[in-house]
């Protein structure tokens, strides 16, 4: 994970999160159980944009904005990859009226086909890996992945445990990391606000 400098932040106190700029490279280090290089989906976001011209990039971002404009809200799919559930509870708490993630237009959806942002917790256990990848592939472009919590970001306390990959980005590309053990609802809100802001800027 060459481009990330502070992935190891742990702690629920300050609401802080790391959101990569829209054109940053997020290299996926997974091999889907084989020794081959990463699959095409795992290429950096910038490379996924058709053509390397700035015009093409602007067009793609324009398409993204159009879609969000039509929707007026990012729809999220929440997926637990083997977490202890603390982050999952805080994600749902973020959607309750006290923290009210919904005021940013964020809606929880049950299916990959209608989702814009995949919100993941957990360090990715071996059993869940293929399902995570499949769900990611079912989400139509443009799509974003948010890793919530220390385990999802770097493996957290689960680093080195034999049945985990050690973070979401070992299976699929990640757009934003929200640290914390668990990530507090405030940190989750902060992360989402930053993600939405970054994308609107293009």
């Amino acid at each position, binding site marked *: 994970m060459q481009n990330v400098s502070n992935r190891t932040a742990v702690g629920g106190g300050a609401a802080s999160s790391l959101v990569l700029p829209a054109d940053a490279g997020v290299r996926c280090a*997974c091999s889907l159980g084989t020794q081959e290089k990463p699959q095409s989906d795992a290429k950096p976001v910038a490379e996924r944009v058709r053509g390397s011209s700035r015009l093409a990039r602007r067009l793609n971002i324009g398409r993204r904005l159009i879609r969000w404009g039509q929707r007026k809200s990012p729809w999220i799919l929440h997926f637990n990859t083997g977490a202890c559930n603390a982050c999952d509870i805080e994600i749902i708490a973020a959607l309750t009226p006290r923290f009210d993630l919904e005021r940013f237009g964020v809606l929880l959806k049950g299916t990959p086909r209608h989702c814009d942002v995949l919100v993941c917790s957990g360090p990715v256990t071996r059993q869940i890996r293929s399902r995570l990848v499949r769900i990611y592939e079912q989400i139509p472009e443009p799509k974003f992945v948010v890793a919530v919590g220390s385990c999802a970001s770097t493996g957290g306390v689960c*680093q080195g445990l034999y049945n985990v990959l050690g973070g979401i980005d070992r299976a699929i590309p990640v757009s934003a990391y929200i640290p914390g053990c668990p990530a507090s609802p405030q940190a989750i809100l902060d992360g989402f606000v930053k993600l939405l802001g970054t994308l609107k800027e293009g």
Partner: protein
Amino acid sequence: MSEAEAVRVELEVRFPYLAGAVRVQREKRLWVEVDPAHFAEVFETLARKLGFTVLCTITGLDLGADLGFIYHLARPAGLMANVKTRAPKGTAIRSVSPLFPGGGIFERELVDLFGARVEGLPPGARYPLPDDWPEGEHPLLKDWQPTSAGTGEKGADHE
């Protein structure tokens, strides 16, 4: 005489070979060490005749040439009898699921994580390892190490 002491005395009367092998650690904790040949009768006596109708769990241990097993039994009112036995690696032990229908899951853990052989397990899925876990790899054995990447295949690097 405390409840635990009473059970200790009862066991030593029924099974003279248990003399010195039953320890009262504290008020609610008994420890019983049995050799494999006598395990079944001691275990059944505790479960059926002495009121230890709760099987909390079964702990597996890697003892080198042997595997160790601790059956954590309890009376509903709280007294525990932890029954320790062992068997050479590769030899089979009998399932306790006839006495404890809910106990099969603990035995499956022993199979997956220690490579124990348990006879008489009712049909069912393995637990807790995934279907594609490599054959013959038992993570809780002392000489088994995960890779630094943590995917669980000895020697394999997933990056």
